[in-house]
């Protein structure tokens, strides 16, 4: 009797789960607040991570997503990488219409199976299977069952209760079941502001999380959205066993198991580099010679196969082939520096214009790029080894101002890279122009850039003349009928200063009404974009890098013209930045226009966004200010 009741209960229990799932197949059951500003709703996401050994993990995922509009198709997220120690055991998808009626069943063999060679990479052995489904109508719902086996466990799947912008979450659950001896580390971020239940350190559930939407100037998603990171203390990286109690450990493992022995060089190269540096008096000078040697000899080619995705190519191979990826080229440079007695460390980092740090509080496999660090130099010198043209020690715009993992024989260490404060990220524009009485102008402009602004400008020198011409026409897009008559570039890599000398002319620059000519004296450096307006700003804002622009333009007017009205000087000082301009009359026919504009790096609260926007708007307005000239009749 007891058995019977029990089994009855069991049946009841099971069927109730099935029933509740079925309910989720229909779009009609979505709570209305979750539909607000959402392209898709994660109805149910249950991810179970079974850790069986340091090199064996089974991840099972059941996922139900209702897609509300075309932009939400990618939120189904039925994309599975495999190869390199990751196997797909099971994949199955069912599609339901708006009312929860099953439309289609898609098996693993019907997934698209393609090579996962990303842009910029020549070859990689990674592959991907993804769902290629054309929706018939919206909304529709996808049920996904997946089972993935990881023998390479360096990346333990984490959890994002809110998966991205414009996606809300009805139910999402994450659990790690650890039946192994290996310790698992967990870090949660920003959980406090969201409806997330913690069952224990390894088991969480989120309910009814509304979507987030992107806003201009907002800091990166992960800094305010809830995120869970997980890592194994012992792991496997494509067949190589790793240790990860902390960054020190992890770094030591990288040094011993990935780097050690890859830095041998052919004897003839050792001789050559010693010969080249023999007269150098200090390490910095030697390092510069080595850096130039590598730049002249190598180029960037990315090939990622097996552990080669993490272990650098042998220095001897880089030497012979003349190419390598960031790991190979950094390691090769490291080997050469070592040969001439200069200390250097291999450094793992996130490369990209947006600043992203290695998480110093949570050791795990992180980063997407490798550079070199010279520890014994003043303030530390960082070397980008994948560029053939970059000035020595210059990293602005790609790896500046962020935490990196330094790999040393003693262990790993987190060090912050060089920052370029606003005083060092400068742009100085000087011009001398002549304005004729038909409203046209001609003259010469010089733009000198340093720091981060150097990184923004120097690329133009390598473009073909046709594109250089178009670049300046777009750079000064508010000057119509612009002709670039001469261009000349100087790249001073020693002091990291880029100079552009440009001769220009423009017809009808001044607008003529009657015997009046209206002229904007700010010809060569205008702010034209005003930050997006939000009636209800929800996120704080960030100015990632500060800068200072200074401008001095001497404008000479034709003898038949005279100055009629000049705009008054303006000076605006805010915590976000500073702006001022002034006009000085030099003589009857010449004025000097001076301008300064700077922004201050920082994170600011959402309440201040409108004030920041007002500041930029007044800059844009003042940059358009006009003076009036009278044509003598």
């Amino acid at each position, binding site marked *: 009797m007891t058995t019977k009741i029990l089994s009855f209960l069991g049946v009841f229990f099971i069927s109730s789960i099935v029933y509740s799932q079925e309910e989720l197949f229909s779009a009609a059951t979505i709570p209305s607040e979750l539909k607000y*500003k959402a392209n898709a709703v994660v109805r149910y996401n249950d991810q179970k991570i079974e850790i069986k050994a340091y090199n064996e993990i089974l991840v099972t995922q059941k996922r139900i997503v209702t897609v509300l*509009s*075309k932009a939400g198709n990618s939120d189904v997220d039925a994309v599975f990488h495999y190869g390199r120690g990751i196997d797909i055991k099971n994949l199955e998808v069912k599609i339901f219409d708006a009312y929860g009626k099953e*439309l*289609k069943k898609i098996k693993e063999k019907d997934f*698209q*199976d*393609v*090579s996962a*060679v990303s842009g910029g990479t*020549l*070859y990689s052995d990674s592959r991907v299977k993804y769902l290629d489904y*054309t*929706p*018939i*109508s919206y909304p529709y719902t996808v049920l996904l069952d997946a089972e993935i086996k990881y023998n390479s466990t360096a990346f333990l799947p984490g959890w994002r209760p809110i998966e991205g912008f414009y996606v809300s979450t009805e139910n999402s659950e994450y659990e790690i079941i650890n039946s192994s001896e290996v310790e698992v580390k967990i870090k949660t971020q920003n959980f406090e502001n969201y409806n997330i239940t913690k069952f224990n350190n390894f088991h969480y559930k989120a309910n009814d999380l509304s979507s987030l939407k992107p806003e201009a100037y907002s800091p990166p998603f992960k800094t305010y959205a809830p995120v869970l990171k997980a890592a194994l203390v012992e792991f496997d990286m494509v067949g190589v066993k790793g240790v990860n109690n902390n960054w020190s450990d992890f770094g030591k493992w990288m040094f011993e198991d990935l780097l050690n022995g890859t830095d041998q060089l052919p004897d003839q190269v050792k001789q050559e580099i010693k010969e080249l540096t023999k007269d150098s008096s200090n390490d910095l000078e030697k390092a510069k010679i080595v850096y130039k040697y590598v730049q*002249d*000899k190598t*180029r960037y*080619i990315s090939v990622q196969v097996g552990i080669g995705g993490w272990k650098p190519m042998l220095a001897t*191979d880089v030497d*012979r*082939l*003349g*190419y390598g990826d960031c790991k190979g080229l950094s390691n090769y440079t490291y080997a050469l520096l070592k040969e001439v007695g200069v200390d250097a460390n291999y450094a793992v980092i996130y490369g990209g214009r947006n600043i992203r740090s290695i998480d110093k509080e949570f050791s795990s496999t992180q980063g997407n790029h490798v550079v070199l660090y010279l520890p014994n130099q003043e303030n530390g010198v960082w070397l980008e080894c994948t560029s*053939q*043209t970059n000035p020595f020690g210059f990293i602005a715009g790609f790896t500046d101002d962020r935490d990196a993992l330094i790999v040393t024989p003693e262990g790993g260490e987190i060090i912050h890279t060089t920052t370029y404060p606003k005083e060092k990220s400068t742009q100085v524009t000087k011009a001398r122009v002549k304005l004729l009485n038909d409203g046209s102008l001609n003259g010469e402009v010089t733009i000198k850039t340093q720091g981060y602004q150097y990184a923004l400008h120097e690329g133009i020198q*390598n473009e*073909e*003349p*046709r594109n250089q*011409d*178009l670049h300046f*026409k*777009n750079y000064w*897009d*508010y000057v*119509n*009928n612009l002709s670039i008559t001469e261009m000349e570039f100087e790249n001073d890599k020693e002091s990291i200063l880029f100079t552009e000398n440009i001769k220009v002319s423009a*017809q*009808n620059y001044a*607008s003529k*009404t*009657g015997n*009046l000519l*209206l002229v904007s004296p700010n010809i060569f450096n205008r702010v034209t*974009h*005003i930050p*997006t*307006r939000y009636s209800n700003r929800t996120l704080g804002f960030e100015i990632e890098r500060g800068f200072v622009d200074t401008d001095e333009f001497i404008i000479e007017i034709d003898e038949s013209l005279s100055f*009629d*009205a000049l*705009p008054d000087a303006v000076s605006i000082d805010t915590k976000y930045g500073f702006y001022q301009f002034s006009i000085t009359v030099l003589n009857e026919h010449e004025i000097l226009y001076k301008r300064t504009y700077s922004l201050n790096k920082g994170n600011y609260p959402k309440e201040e966004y409108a004030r920041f926007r007002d500041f930029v*708007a007044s800059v*844009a*307005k003042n940059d*358009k*200010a*006009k003076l*009036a000239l009278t044509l003598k009749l």
Partner: protein
Amino acid sequence: MKKALTTLLILFLGYVQYAQDYDFGKVSKQELEEKICPQDSSANAVVLYKNEKISFEYVQGEGFMQNREVHERIKIYNKEGFHWATKKIRLYNSSASNSENLSSLKGYTFSLIDGKIEKEKLKKESIFEEEANKYWKFESFTMPNVKDGCVIEYAYRIKSPYLQIDDINFQYNIPILKYDLKISTPEYYIYNKLLNPKSSYIPKLNLTKEHNSFTINSKARSTTGGLTATKTEFSQSKTDYMDNVITINEVNIPALKDEPLVDNIDNYRAKLILELTAIKYPNKPLESFSSSWEKVTKTIYDSDEFGIQLDKTGYYEEDLEYLIAGETNVSNKITLIYNHVKSKVKWNGYYGYRTDNGVRKAYKEGTGNVGDINLILVSMLRSAGVKANPVLISTKNNGIPLFPTRDGFNYVICMIEDVNFNVLLDATNDYSTVDILPTRALNWQGRVIRENGSSAWIDLQPKVKSEETVLLNIAINTDLTVGGKVRENYTNYMAMQHRNRYANVSPDDLIKIFEKNKGEIVIENLEINNVKDVEKPLQITYEFQSNDAVEEIAGKLYFTPMLFLATSENPFKQIKRNYPITMDFPVSTKYMVNVMIPEGYEVETLPESSAVDFNNGGAKLTYVVKKSGKYLQLLVNLDLNTTLVLPEDYEYFKGFFKSSIEKHNEKVVLKKII
């Protein structure tokens, strides 16, 4: 004697000066020393030599196999040219017997070190094979030791079971200094040859014949009878035949560089196209393939994935009956069926005039490629008694085919040829309507196939103007802010473009899009009407408040009456053009502006009314300004009637835009009433 010597010497000198050894591996010091390409100083790399040989080899049991041998020598001047040292070759790879294979790859990088030529071999470690997907694989390789000034050289062979020969491109975006091509095709296969007449570079073809032969080994068993052993006899039979040979030997082929607003730069590339048009084996009748557009069209029409699909009706009969029940008006029937197909079958993003899954399956599952969807449309219309026919099309990215070939088409739409209608339909886009096709289909001409199998060209170029009509009412306030209302109307292609752009944007984000690039503005009460109602013009209305539209200089007010609607930037910035500008459709924009002058001010200067014309009405701007009491009225019309601007007209056209934009930005000056 003496004379003979000098002649010899001169000859010899001349030889030294001009001789270049194009044999594989014979890279010269001069080639390595060169710092800049004399033919094109802007080139970062140059193809010093390219040799390509295409021939067919008889393989017993498999027939003629195509061999394509490529040898290239490339000079790399600087780092911007380094990517020429990496090559990715795409090969068809659907099954073992239907695959193209690359073999005999060899390569070297040559550098000059201390005046000596050194070479580094391309090895296996730098060669990669990637299975991209079900159909394609990539063979990639990257040359070792690439530095400024080096010369790379490589050669490989591609074996293919196909008789179809890929197009031969004579132009890269770097110059080719010397190109030798030899194509030998067995006499049994007849190829049509065509050089791209639109290219400004036309290579010269030489046609000859050469002897060739193949041998078949055969084995025959004979039994003499009784208990005697069987005997195997080997025999060989040799067949002689002629090869048709095309040779091309060109020097100094200029680079081909893309420009904005070119329909497809490939349409201007120097290339040789070979189309297999017939097979004639000895003692067999001639088997002829496509050789005229009529024939191509007929072949397509007769194929299983096309004409036969049009005849299937069972799968939709019930739906159709219900859909048009009681409807007698042809125009209404068309609308009903067109909308039904648009909502019933969604486009999966794939092109093709053939059906992918077949019409029945596509209809049932609700998704299909272009062929599936538009053939369903044609078929349903026909079943409803409408004279509908399919039209074969080559999309913009497929380019303009140079001669009759099935690959010349890659898309199909529907045409209704009724007494009262002569319209085109495409059901693959939610916002296309009658005669308003997705712009991908607006290329070259279409080939309509009628029910009796006959076919004819039709023009695809839109003739009807797409209109933008904007009504702007503004009032200048005493604090110099400007408030106003805007009403915008879009028709035809303009309406489709705006629908595609705005349909999936939330109202919140729409305001941000509209506020963008309008200076210090606040937009409110933004409404977009008729987004789904595609038969009607798309209508957008909003109110705004602008803080930076009026400038006060020395007590006078200056403003552009078109405010933020004025075009401020000339879209044509290039100094000169090499290729025509192609625009999709003719456009007519009308701006009607009413300005209320603020209290206490009067007009000092108004812009002059005027008209600007390009190429006798090809484009036209009219600008009319009037004052009546407290109000200013402005009427600005810009018509772009032409959709093609030739390079020789470019400067004139750019000048037209310059004048138009200057007119757009002219200012009204107000002064205080004293």
